[in-house]
């Protein structure tokens, strides 16, 4: 360590080395939201902080992720967003008015007297740098809070520090009410049928919106200026007609705040790694990775993964981690692991159950129960009509 180099700088340079020559993959609202699930996974924590392309890495070690998005879903998403924003968002404003109501302070989201909303576009302009676009957003946000008309800012570019790095975020819409209250608006193309939507999708949208709320609060420096009520705009029933729903994201904000604070722990994780550890894929002249899979796999084994079956739906490396977790009770699901007394491996479970392994002090209770379970399982199986055994209880008499 050179004199004058801070812990942050050192971590930063270590993370750069871990990523190697590839450009960093920055967090977005989705990946930040994913951090709140399985936050204890050091492997994901370090790789995400370093901005490693996990999808490419998983491919190179022979466990490609099964994530893909159907063209149809993308088309529908774009068509719906365009429809929502059509006609100067007047319709949208009416819906906001209905779902947000008026505040005690008398500010109307629809701005009754002022009429039409002021539309500000935050979308990228040709040749505009991220920094310039962000500056433009900041200026627009500051001006908006002073007007007496409702203001809608499309695709503002926000910035949030995640694990010591700035991440750029792009909410679909931000609504600024005449009194200066900000609302984050998310446009999603999953349907709300008879007032109900798929719980998992709503949960994902809520946490994503919470990321934007947090970013906006930090940017404005005034937490109370950004409402914890976000607006979710979805198609109604089986149609393409939009409807707005208010969602309170206070709980998600608490979780996020907590997780982002914990992310600084990456410093400690990185410090414990060998200095030459890198996941550089060494792309050849044609851009294809040339780094041997075995080397990368050896590197991965230095990073502890906390695999649960949930990972399969959210992490690119999940198949690799599942492969490593074979034979562990965690791979069977958290509730199964718990039922098996939290014993680490399947082999241990079966040996404890068979009484061929002496339990440790804290396994005693679990071992006792496992022995009982094994005995009951064998007896139950033997007593069933499907087997030739006729001993013991044969179930009900007709």
């Amino acid at each position: 360590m050179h004199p004058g180099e801070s812990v942050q700088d050192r971590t930063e340079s270590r993370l750069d080395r871990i990523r190697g020559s590839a450009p960093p993959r920055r967090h977005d609202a989705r990946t930040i939201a994913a951090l709140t699930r399985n936050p204890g996974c050091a492997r994901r924590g370090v790789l995400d902080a370093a901005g490693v392309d996990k999808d490419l890495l998983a491919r190179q070690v022979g466990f490609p992720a099964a994530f893909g998005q159907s063209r149809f879903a993308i088309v529908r998403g774009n068509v719906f967003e365009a429809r929502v924003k059509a006609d100067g968002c007047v319709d949208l404003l009416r819906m906001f008015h209905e779902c947000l109501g008026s505040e005690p302070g008398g500010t109307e989201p629809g701005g009754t007297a002022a009429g039409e909303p002021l539309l500000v576009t935050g979308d990228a302009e040709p040749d505009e740098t991220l920094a310039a676009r962000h500056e433009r957003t900041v200026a627009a946000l500051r001006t908006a809070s002073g007007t007496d008309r409702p203001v809608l800012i499309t695709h503002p570019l926000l910035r949030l520090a995640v694990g010591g790095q700035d991440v750029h975020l792009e909410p679909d819409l931000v609504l600024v009410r005449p009194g200066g209250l900000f609302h984050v608006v998310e446009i999603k193309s999953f349907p709300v049928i008879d007032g109900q939507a798929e719980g998992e999708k709503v949960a994902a949208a809520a946490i994503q919106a919470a990321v934007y709320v947090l970013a906006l609060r930090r940017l404005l420096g005034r937490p109370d200026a950004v409402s914890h009520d976000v607006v979710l705009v979805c198609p109604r029933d089986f149609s393409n007609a939009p409807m707005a729903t208010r969602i309170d994201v206070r709980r998600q904000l608490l979780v996020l705040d907590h997780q982002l604070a914990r992310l600084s722990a990456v410093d400690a994780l990185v410090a414990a790694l060998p200095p030459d550890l890198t996941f550089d894929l060494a792309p050849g002249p044609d851009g294809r990775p040339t780094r041997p899979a075995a080397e990368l796999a050896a590197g991965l084994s230095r990073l502890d993964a906390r695999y649960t079956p949930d990972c399969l739906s959210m992490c690119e490396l999940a198949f690799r981690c599942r492969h490593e977790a074979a034979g562990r009770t965690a791979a069977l699901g958290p509730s199964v692991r718990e039922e098996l007394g939290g014993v680490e491996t399947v082999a241990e479970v079966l040996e404890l159950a068979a009484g061929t392994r002496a339990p440790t002090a804290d396994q005693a209770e679990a071992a006792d129960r496992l022995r009982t379970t094994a005995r009951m399982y064998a007896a139950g199986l033997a007593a069933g009509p499907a087997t030739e055994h006729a001993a013991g209880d044969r179930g009900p008499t007709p």
Partner: protein
Amino acid sequence: MTAISSYARALAAASGTAVPTATVRHVHLAARPLILVPLAMAGEANAPLAAMVGTERERPELLVVPQPRNRDLRFAFAARLAEIFLPYVLGFAADIEELTNGPRTVDAPQLIVPNQAGVAFVRLFGRSTRFRTTTGDYAVEPSVPLLGRWLTFFAERAEVPGSSLMPAATEMLSLHWATGQSALEDANLAALMGWIDPPAGADGPAAARLAEDPRHCPPAGPTTDPGFDNEVLAPAIAAYDAVTDPSQLPDAVKRLEEALHSQLQPTWDLVWRALDRLRVLPGGASVPGRWEVDRSRYTGFHTYMIEEGLPQARRDGAVAAARRLNRMERAQASYDAERAFDDPLVMADHRVTGEAFLGSVVAVDRDRRVPNGRGKGRLVTRPLVTLRTEDPVRLALGMKVVATRRRRQECVVTALEPCDAGILVTLEAQNGMGRSAAPAPGSVPEVGESLCYSSVLADGVRSATMPEAEDTPWTHGGPPQPYEPSEQDTAEAWE
């Protein structure tokens, strides 16, 4: 997860093949079920894309929506599905047996889908079709709203524990086998069957991994593989859209049909293989009883469709919802109890938790008589039976228990005392001994008998009485509005 099923997963993981968690079959399997494998278009709100449907393994019917974004084609699909579905469903209505409390059909239709997502598809497709009008703007075939109401009926029954009117293949398999993977992965029908019935030369894990690869094995739907969407389906739909000469339409449709057939056929075969595996198991003793309930519900709904036939409400009113919840809880309780009484391997779960125990009778006070507690010095027969067990009993005094082999006799726990290497449980028999003062022969257990008593009984759920729907209090939104068909119902899906 229960102790037994978790332990079974560990066994399966170690051995590389699924292990049984049931010794008898707990679902009813119809002699001629209707299998439905639906596919929906990604991103859209329950837009049907294709379906393979039929009652004959060798002759499935393939239905395809060439452009799922076209609402007319969607409802044309619904009409074609109704042509197959309605004759099958209504075909069971004629054969009726008269019971004291009304008629009941002697059999009922059974709709089988591959997985839980298939059940959800049927529910939503029922929702999108049951309100359609057959006249005026946006008219559909008369069979379409009928189809919607029947699909909704099946979807609602599918939520009731123990009902076999619309089971999902994955759920049926998971009820009878444990795999060495997680429940989440078991939702993939092909992977689940890979563990239960691996192809020759492969073990469970290898077969399951192969089954997860969409290039090797298409997903069981209704969501299609994104790779298939982008590489095969999108170009084929684009080609269909691009047709300007009507004579070329059949070719474009044929290309789509072939593509979708390749995605559906493997799942179709898997569902039938799953049924083969399940049919081998002997049926549980209480299965016919639960099927009788399904037959009654089917008969009742058929009568309703003839007499009133209005579509089911979008959402239940407060009273209806509370009643429904209560019915489901009762159904769950009796289903849990019945399965355990039918199957010693399910009972094993209750034995692990101490809610049931297996013991041998060590003492019997057969002719014990006690005052009936209602005065007048009358005596009633209440024999005492003492059993010794080594099971980890967790019962409390006063709890009701019933033996698997003496299901008509309720007993109450009156004493629990530890003895060498076990527990002595004393039970007081309450009934099932005949009318005379001395218990009928064989009606009281005898010394040396081995019995399994369980406290998991069907009558555990009680509910407060509910007000009539028209008396719904304001706290619950007041009396619900009666349903009236409106313009909005029919316009919505065309916007």
